């Protein structure tokens, strides 16, 4: 049900790639400040869903409203929407020709029209927050994967968006770097206020920060419940099987 505090409202969302249906009748409501973790086997449509939310993919049917702006193909408001929705990618997607500091300030300067000094001060603040203030003048290729992903998170933070989307932020990282990124994400989640939607397989992280767990399979939302319920008492068999698979190790 839509209320004043609903940030993301998806109603009967369908998405096709040719004949293949990637999303089937998705209904999802995310409140302001809510932290949602989406999990599920690969190819289940998790990334597609999260990419629909900031219009990187367009849904074919149903209705999607994000921060009061309706998202649809060719919408004139899509840029206004994206300014309010940050996105962190699996492959970081930092701008390799720009220094770390320039990566962080290009959005605020070019999109938000901030002054360079203000944007830089802000960028340094957020670099501090992701624990790499000393890397400001390096280039992305000089950083480790974990550091790059933290720069990517800082880049989104610099836009001071109300919603943050994480698309498998730790999947491309070497195992020893996963924790440094998760720590930053936990810190963000616990500081509150920001609406977060995170696609991840990190169940420890999910347990710590999620308000709602969403389980997807074959393009459908199979289960959606608070983590305490989700982890101890999953209702569907598919979800039980999935959890058993990834929690067994």
């Amino acid at each position: 049900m839509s209320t004043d505090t609903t940030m993301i409202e998806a109603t009967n969302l369908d998405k096709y790639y040719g004949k293949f249906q990637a999303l089937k009748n998705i209904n999802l409501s995310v409140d302001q400040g809510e932290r949602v973790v989406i999990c599920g086997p690969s190819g289940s449509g998790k990334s597609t869903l999260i990419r629909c939310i900031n219009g990187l993919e367009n849904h074919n049917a149903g209705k999607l409203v994000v921060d009061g702006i309706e998202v649809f193909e060719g919408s004139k408001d899509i840029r206004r929407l994206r300014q309010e929705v940050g996105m962190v990618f699996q492959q970081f997607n930092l701008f390799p020709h720009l220094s770390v500091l320039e990566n962080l300030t290009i959005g605020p300067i070019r999109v938000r029209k901030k002054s360079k000094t203000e944007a830089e001060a802000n960028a340094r603040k957020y670099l501090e927050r992701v624990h790499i203030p000393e890397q400001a003048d390096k280039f992305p290729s000089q950083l480790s994967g974990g550091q790059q992903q933290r720069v990517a998170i800082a880049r989104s933070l610099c836009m001071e968006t109300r919603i943050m989307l994480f698309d498998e932020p730790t999947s491309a990282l070497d195992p020893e770097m996963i924790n440094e990124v998760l720590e930053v994400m936990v810190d963000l989640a616990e500081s509150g206020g920001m609406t977060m939607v995170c696609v991840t397989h990190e169940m420890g992280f999910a347990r710590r920060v999620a308000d709602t767990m969403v389980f997807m399979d074959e393009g459908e939302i199979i289960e959606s419940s608070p983590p305490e319920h989700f982890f101890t008492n999953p209702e569907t068999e598919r979800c039980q099987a999935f959890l058993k698979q990834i929690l067994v190790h």
Partner: protein
Amino acid sequence: MRIYNKKIHWLDIVLLLALAAAFAFIWYRIDGALNYKWRWEIIPNYIVRWNPDKQAWVANLLLQGVITTIRVSIYASILALILGVILGIARCSKNLAIRMLARTYLEVLRNIPPVVVIFIFYFFLSEQLVTAFNIEDWARAIARQEDNQAWEFFFGDMRRFPQLVSGVVVLALFESAFVGEIVRAGIQSIGKGQHEAAQSIGMTKIDQMRFIVLPQALKKVVPPMANQFIAIIKDSSIISLISVQELTFKTVELVASTRAIFEAWITTALFYFAICFTLSMLFRKLENNNVPHP
């Protein structure tokens, strides 16, 4: 990795001897059979000559030609780069009409010999443009001025300015098709992730292109672009056909007046080679010094 021989093998010697014999034969034919009289001694005078009035060494035919060739090549390169970037962006446009226009322009220029393009352009368009913009009178007025050194430095003899403009424009138009393809390849080599990252921070399409895609794309295509600039220098010899007084044109003049066919053309070949080879070495050095971040 391949292993290259560093020592001379007996086969190499045979090969070199055969080559030397071939050259000797050609030399013999020219020198003996054609009864050609070599007059290398006249050539230096046509590069620089002593001007007794000014009491100074001044550029003669060949060096004047070299200077014009360099001028034309620089201006044509700049113009071709600008046009080529626009063309490259247009080729990657989402809009079908823009893509088709760019494609048509490219295919037309790529599939017509440069000489034909140059004649068509010169006789149909250039004349009209020069008349329409009154370039001829304007240039003549400058040519008559006393202190026109700055103009002459950049454009040479101002009375020849209309030809220079035509030459530069037509050369740039022709080369822009190739530059455009290089730029397009560069743009398309930039991954989808870069576009998405730029989109997701709310950048406009133009800003994405300007700050994210183009800077990376142009950096990637520096080597083929450098080759294209060298090609422009070589191709510039074609515009001698529309009386731009560059190196090839001047050589034709020189040959007509002195009949020193072989000496003049060999000298001209050496000039072209020296310019292009130096540039190519320079670009290679720049590339090696400027190893991009992986």
